[in-house]
């Protein structure tokens, strides 16, 4: 299956600017509200983590609020996140965490046994950056170590089944899947002079690069209207994530699957 022509192509500086404004700043602003809505671990991620053996070093790249950390003493769990606010939430739960960018992991090579990166790579604005993030994860894995990466899929409805994301809209559950088309509002990201479509929440994706609104829950005392923040996403086509992994020499794809609106890959560091 081919990647469509709808590719946004940015230089490094503009990609970094876009991510700074529409990913990093947003998460800093929405951190506690975001954390409240991200409490339930996904079963297939937990299943992957349960592969760990005693003494395993387990890294969560983009760990957010430490959703996938447990209280076990059998393994060493380490998280990193770009958001200082989210990392603080993680620390308050007594977990080891540090701040960094997933493109420059400040970790020595060949020392991690299991790595997860859930809903992170789809915030990177170019395919070079997405590949670089995968290479960084593979670099820190020990030979034989494995990583699980989840990214948002462009295809939210597979085999007539709506993903959990689409099902969360009461409207969607009444209509046939094909009719769930987003309307096209656009937003101009002035700093880089690029227009991006604004996604209608809980509808199918048409574009590959888009802004998804997050409405911040305001406390009752606050009189102004609730703020809406726009988060940048690149949604992945069917083979896209797998093809990126296959570009890495010392990386072998072990499994590739679709899970509730996400494309998921398990890969292993191999000796070449």
């Amino acid at each position, binding site marked *: 299956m081919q990647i469509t022509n709808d590719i946004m192509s940015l230089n490094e500086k503009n990609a*970094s600017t876009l991510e700074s404004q529409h990913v990093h700043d947003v998460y800093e602003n929405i951190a506690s509200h975001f954390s409240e809505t991200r409490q339930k671990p996904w079963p297939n991620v937990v299943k992957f983590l349960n592969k760990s*053996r*005693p*003494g*395993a*070093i387990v890294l969560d790249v983009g760990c957010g609020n430490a959703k996938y950390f447990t209280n076990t*003493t*059998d*393994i*060493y769990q*380490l998280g990193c996140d*770009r958001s*200082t606010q989210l*990392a*603080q939430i993680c*620390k308050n739960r007594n977990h*080891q*965490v*540090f*701040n*960094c*960018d997933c*493109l*420059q*992991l*400040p*970790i*020595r090579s060949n*020392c*991690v046994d299991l790595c997860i990166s859930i809903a992170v790579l789809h915030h990177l604005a170019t395919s070079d950056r997405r590949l670089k993030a995968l290479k960084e994860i593979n670099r820190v894995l020990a030979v034989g170590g494995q990583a699980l990466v989840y990214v948002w899929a462009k295809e939210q409805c597979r085999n007539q089944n709506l993903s959990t994301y689409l099902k969360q809209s009461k409207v969607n559950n009444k209509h046939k899947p094909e009719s769930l088309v987003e309307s096209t509002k656009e937003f101009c990201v002035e700093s880089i002079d690029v227009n991006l479509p604004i996604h209608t929440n809980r509808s199918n994706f048409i574009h590959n690069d888009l802004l998804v609104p997050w409405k911040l829950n305001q406390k009752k005392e606050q009189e102004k209207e609730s703020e809406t923040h726009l988060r940048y996403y690149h949604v992945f086509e069917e083979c896209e994530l797998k093809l990126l992994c296959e570009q890495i020499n010392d990386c072998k794809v072990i499994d590739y699957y679709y899970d509730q609106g996400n494309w998921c890959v398990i890969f292993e560091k191999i000796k070449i």
Partner: protein
Amino acid sequence: MKLLTHNLLSSKCLKGVKVGYPLRIVAKDVKISESEFNKEFVKKIIPKLDWKVFVNAAVQVRSTYDCTNVVTQEFNLYQSTTILTGFTKCLFFLFQIGHGNDLSDELIDDYEDDEEYLKKVHHLLMEVEIINGELICPETERVFPISSGIPNLLLNENEVS
């Protein structure tokens, strides 16, 4: 930041850095928290450590922080919870490090069977936490702050290779 975390961190991602390991530690506030000793875990983690870096990190913590700054004790569910026990353990740590009772920088051969040794490793690896301080790149002297127990290794735009 525990010393096991320190053992994994590197500044090689900085522009112009060839090795970037280990990061030098400056400890300003240190917390000793008791945590459950898991013998299997310690046995399995030792071969994964850069042992010399670990031993040296413990020495750096000793030599850079003011002993009077040792902060609160924390007790988890697995420990007996008298304040005296915690205080005594804290004094013991200070006594140990004050009297140079460090682990040797050569790992002993039969560590797997030596429970006292494993407990010592566990204590330094898992129970010593740097709350405020600095991590310093050995090649560029770039300072990465540690605050509220969280090291910040985010790079500036001009530091990215």
